[in-house]
């Protein structure tokens, strides 16, 4: 009962944190000076401005915190609605900004009304909250339980141990009491044992049993020895440390990025391809830091400072996040390859992904849950062959198979076809 209470409380605390820390932006906006609604402003900001602007940091455009103090409000209205026109008038302030940011034009937003802009400005005036406040807010939301999730887990375990100990003590006490009762009532508790041949002696004397056991043991050890030998060179579970800690859990799991967004060549080529760094920079140009909660999670659960890992990416691509420019030297990343097929086996991703329409997870496992990528499948020939034997091929909807499908279904009476039926077990299909 006690344990149940602890478990429930613990899990609530975990959920509570997740719910409140999913956003990295300030949680409690402070009322701004100009009377705009910061909450409405936040929504507008995220919809229209966030792809180029951040509040406290320079991105494609300038940091917008307290922008209303730097510029006249009327000026801001005209700038936001059509900055190009403003620059064309030769407005000194406008031209200065235009030049500062590599003469790239800001999109025009004629659809925003002055009130909308007021709201946005109200939002931009919110102070940067400190991370400690943030945690406090999170805890407050979850009910008054001390400590984070890791601490509560320890407490639960400790409590469980105490409960178990109590139970053991209780049992001994009950046993003793019962014995005492029995003695008091004259009931015999210890029985005289008959003289019997010990079971091991009986076993040794029974030759048939010995033989069967010996055979069993031999077979069992052969089975395990075979298994052990067969696992030689099989790197299932191989999870090397990578030069940049890349979390598939965050990218594919939390952010639900499609596998083939980054591993795009899996659609076309035999290689799934480790994405080139310019693909990373598509997003990470504007994502220089992770959300605070994610950051904390990284430190607490995995001992990884995600922000430092992003800095490693910047160093490799030569990206200067202050200047928003590629200035440094490029240094390609030497990733440790996880899935290694021997050279004598030919494997083609496109065949499986595009033609076979097989989900990546079938072979690579729950990548979206992997903080550290590891080899999920054994990648042995037996494993390949098994799948080729068992997997039914969907011949419909692919023009290539039309003729084959017609002929095969006539020949086999509409039975489902496996890859083996199409020649997928032939040696030369993978070994040449």
């Amino acid at each position, binding site marked *: 009962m006690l344990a149940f209470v602890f478990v429930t409380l613990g899990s609530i605390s975990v959920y509570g944190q997740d719910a409140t820390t999913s956003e990295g932006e300030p949680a409690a906006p402070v009322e701004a000076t100009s009377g705009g609604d910061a909450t409405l402003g936040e929504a507008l900001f995220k919809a229209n401005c966030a792809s180029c602007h951040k509040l406290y940091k320079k991105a494609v455009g300038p940091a917008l915190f307290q922008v209303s103090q730097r510029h006249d409000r009327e000026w801001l209205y005209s700038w936001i609605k059509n900055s190009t026109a403003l620059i064309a008038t030769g407005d000194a302030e406008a031209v200065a900004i235009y030049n500062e940011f590599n003469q790239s034009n800001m999109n025009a937003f004629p659809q925003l009304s002055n009130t909308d802009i007021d709201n946005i400005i109200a939002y931009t005036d919110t102070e940067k909250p400190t991370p400690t406040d943030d945690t406090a807010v999170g805890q407050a939301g979850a009910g008054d339980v001390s400590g984070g999730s890791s601490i509560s887990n320890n407490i639960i375990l400790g409590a469980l141990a105490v409960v178990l100990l109590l139970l053991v003590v209780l049992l001994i006490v009950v046993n003793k009491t019962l014995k005492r009762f029995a003695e008091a009532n004259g009931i015999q508790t210890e029985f005289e044992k008959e003289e019997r041949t010990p079971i091991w002696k009986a076993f040794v004397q029974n030759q048939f049993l010995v033989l069967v056991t010996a055979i069993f043991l031999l077979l069992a050890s052969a089975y395990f020895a075979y298994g052990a030998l067969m696992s*030689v*060179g099989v*790197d299932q579970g191989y999870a*090397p440390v990578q030069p940049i800690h890349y979390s598939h859990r965050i990218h594919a799991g939390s952010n639900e990025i499609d596998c083939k967004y980054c591993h795009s*060549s899996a*659609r*076309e*080529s*035999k*290689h799934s*391809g*480790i*994405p*080139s*760094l*310019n*693909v990373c920079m598509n997003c990470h140009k504007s994502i220089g830091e992770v959300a605070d909660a994610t950051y904390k999670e990284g430190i607490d659960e995995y001992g990884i400072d995600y922000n430092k890992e992003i800095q490693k990416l910047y160093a*490799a*691509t030569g990206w200067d996040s202050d200047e928003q420019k590629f200035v440094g030297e*490029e*240094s*390609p*990343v*030497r*990733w*440790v*390859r996880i899935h*290694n097929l*021997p*050279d*004598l086996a*030919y494997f*083609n991703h*496109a*065949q499986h992904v*595009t*033609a076979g329409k097989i989900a990546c997870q079938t072979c690579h496992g729950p990548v979206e849950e992997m903080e550290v990528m590891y080899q999920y499948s054994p990648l042995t020939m037996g494993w390949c062959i098994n799948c080729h034997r068992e997997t039914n091929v969907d011949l419909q*909807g*692919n*023009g*290539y*198979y*039309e*003729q*084959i499908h017609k*002929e*095969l279904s006539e*020949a086999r009476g509409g039975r489902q076809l496996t890859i083996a039926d*199409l*020649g997928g077990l*032939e*040696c*030369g*299909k993978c*070994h*040449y």
Partner: protein
Amino acid sequence: MATTKKYWKSTAQLDDSNEIVKNLEQNEFASPIPSDEFLGNDEAMESSSTSRRDFLKYVGFSTAAASLAACEGPVIYSVPYVNQPEQIIPGMANYYATTIANGYDFASILVKTREGRPIKIESNKDAMYRGHANARVHASVLSLYDNNRLKTPMIKGVESNWEEFDKQVANQLTSLNGKELVVLSQTFASPSMNKIFSQLKGKYSNVRVVTYDAVGEEAALAAFEARYGSRALADYDFIDAETIVSIGADFVGDWQGGGFDKGYAKSRVPKNGKMSQHIQYESNLSLSGSNADRRYPVTPTEQKNIIAALYSKIVGGGANVSLSDKVAKSVEQTAISLKRAGSKAVVLCGIPDQAAHQLTIAINEALRSTIVDTDAPILTRQGNRSSVDALVKDMNAGKVGAIFIAGVDPVYSYDDSDAFAKALEKVALRVSFASSMNATAEKCNYVATTPHYLESWGDTEIKKGHVYLTQPTINPIFKTRQLQDTLLKWSGSTESYKDFLKDTSAAAGSSWNQSLQDGFYKTSVVVSESGEDVEREVISNSAALSAMASAKKPSGYELTLYTKTGLGDGVMANNPWLQELPDPITRTTWDNYVTISQVDAEKVGVVNENVANGALDGTYVTVTLDGVQRKLPALIQPGQAAGTIGIALGYGQTAAIQEEMQTGVNAYPFYKNGVAVQTVSVKDAGGTHEFACTQLQNTMMGRDIIRETDLETYRTGNKDNFNPMPEVSLNHVETPVTSPDVDLWESFDRSVGHHFNMSIDLNACTGCGACVIACHAENNVPVVGKTEVRKSRDMHWLRIDRYYSSEDSFEADEAKKDGFDGLFGDNGSLGGFGELEVPADNPQVAFQPVMCQHCNHAPCETVCPVAASSHGRQGQNHMAYNRCVGTRYCANNCPYKVRRFNWFLYNGNDEFDYHMNNDLGRMVINPDVTVRSRGVMEKCSLCMQMTQMTILEAKKDGRMIKDGEFATACSNACSSGAITFGDINDKESEIFKVKQQDRMYHLLEEVGTEPNVMYQVKVRNV
């Protein structure tokens, strides 16, 4: 007999008190042997817990443990691009159209690149002209990864950098003091290059451009210029030809730059009962002679007489020509068939004499031949020997202040190379534009290292009005700079050559991107004028006629120099693929030699014999010409005209050539004044030379390995007459071998999906060898070296067998065999078969490409104890290398002898120091094909990786596969269209139609292997 003599053993014995001597005298033979010292005492041994057995156990365990620990895979790194180029998908090939123009070979090609490195050359089938690659062009990709290439510019033999280089040369160029600046170059035929030369002339007042071809066509150029006014070569398209008469011209080979075999092969395939007739007069047995319907071995002098005789018969002029009866009769017949074919006839001339070429032009004009194209001539040979000779004189006279040598190696290839080298040293500034430290570069104080053509830009007007573009397919691997960039810089331009090229092509009215994608553009703007203007000799036709008619046989042997399919003029001598490519006629690798007829061999004392393992040995001869003496091995060549010998050019290079590739003897010293025919004396020099031949059986012994017929018989349309189905006796009834009743095997069901077949048309195959090199490149076939080839351990997956007839024709061979009666006597088979092994003096020749036949009833599959060889439903016979344990049963059981065994590890092995033994050379390896290891069998896979890729592309697009999409490396490389490949389950396909032809047969059909490779009966138009 007793003696009291005392024998002293040492001076120490004089001293009686010497302890050592005493000790030795008493104890001379120490006993027992102190084994304890070695083994320790028994007690200690027994009390020890480690017995010998235990020791062995420990050794065993630790070995097993160490090897188990070693099973853990190594850490493999993957390094993706930082910025991936948009068009590159790792694992997918990209193709770029470009052009090779190395001074000898000119062709428009497609380059296959993987992850940014070129790995294979393909023909550019969309090019209107010269869009097909020969064996050398296919192999040129390997020269890109040549370890002997220079890596930086060189100043006086020391590695340098470009700034320093430019500074020093610029300094020297300013102090020319009115002396000449000479550019000695290969034939560029490049519009942009001509513009660069004129810019150079603008900057430096006294500039001369001299064009030099190592192997030139001076006589033909002079004759063409005399008649048509431009220094060029007539073009020929044989596709509609009916009668082709060649006098000494190896036009199927490299005559006038080659590239005529495509049209020729088309005309050789009988269509509606018609095909071209080819008559060849020549002294060496060439590729053209081998393919001819009628071939006459004649000396070069006789060739001149024949030209005169033909001229008299067709144009008139009535020259008095003395010819032997047989030749005279043949000339008469030839003239008749030429006249009959009229405008569809053509005469070709390979005699290095302007008069002969003039007469040939006159004959073709008289015939109104449509085969010849003189309006848009070929521009790829413009060399001029007399200018080079003049240059040597001027250099000696000190008139030349600076010389730029580009694309040529005269210190190696000029006939009097010593004189050239000496004259060269008198020039103060000598700049060589070369990619390796060749013989000429060694003599130059500056080497402006140039990139390979696959790293360069360029344009070449191969044929008038047809400009072909060269574009880089890889970033320069080394610190090299193109000749054009360097010259532009030195002539004061700041423009890059790429931009310059763009402007040039824009000026010619082409769209840059489109032309670059196609690899060529057409223009009417006259761009490539020869840089030189030299007075030409003009001869009248009558003077030419009398010169030719009166040509008299000289005393001595008439030498005809030729170039081999493999090495050509020798530019790519450091290419192991080409060195190991067998000569199509002699089937010899890694060598050049004197070809000599049997008659002359007996006169001179030349002996060729096979040693115990079958390999061929030959004696040496000394060939002498005006004091130039060379010792070469001699090879007895059937078909060689009596009184003549042949030697291949391009061999015997040593500068910048890896030791293994320094093969043969340099024959350029015999190439006096650029004339390929010389009179020499030949003497026996004794000794034994070891040849490395890939084929030692010369004849078919009257069997029908290659089926042949004549056009007459073929026209009857009765297949039994020329292509009968072999039969076996079943219950005393003759039954065709393909009948299921005589079949031991269950048939596979191949009705669903693809079933690949390949057809090889023996009429179209010219034996050029392009397919062999393409196969090497596609399938990572290793190079094994001369000694291994000699042991018949060559690894070629595809070989082109060459057979000579033993009688005058193959038909006569067969008749002789069928006429055998008993074992002994005149018609006895014992002696008869011996005779059939000897090729005739002027044999018929036939080529047959043989690769794995992919038998449906494969003998190799049944004997494999580990099932490494298995059958696929698509018709291919699979070979799983990693399963093979190397019993070689399969090779023994293969009736076609196409399986190859890896006797050694050929990659990463210092004993086989070819391209697979260095990181640079390994870049050519095709990543889709396994590199085989030692101890496994390998063979042709019908380019499984290519058919699988075609299928996958179709699956990805969700479409059916069109006919013509399936291809193999060899079928792609075959410009003559001899190799057809496809899916016979597609009833509309070309291969299906070809299979139904009545010329179709299978090799060794009677064995019942039911191969998936078929051949088409060779038809001769005799």
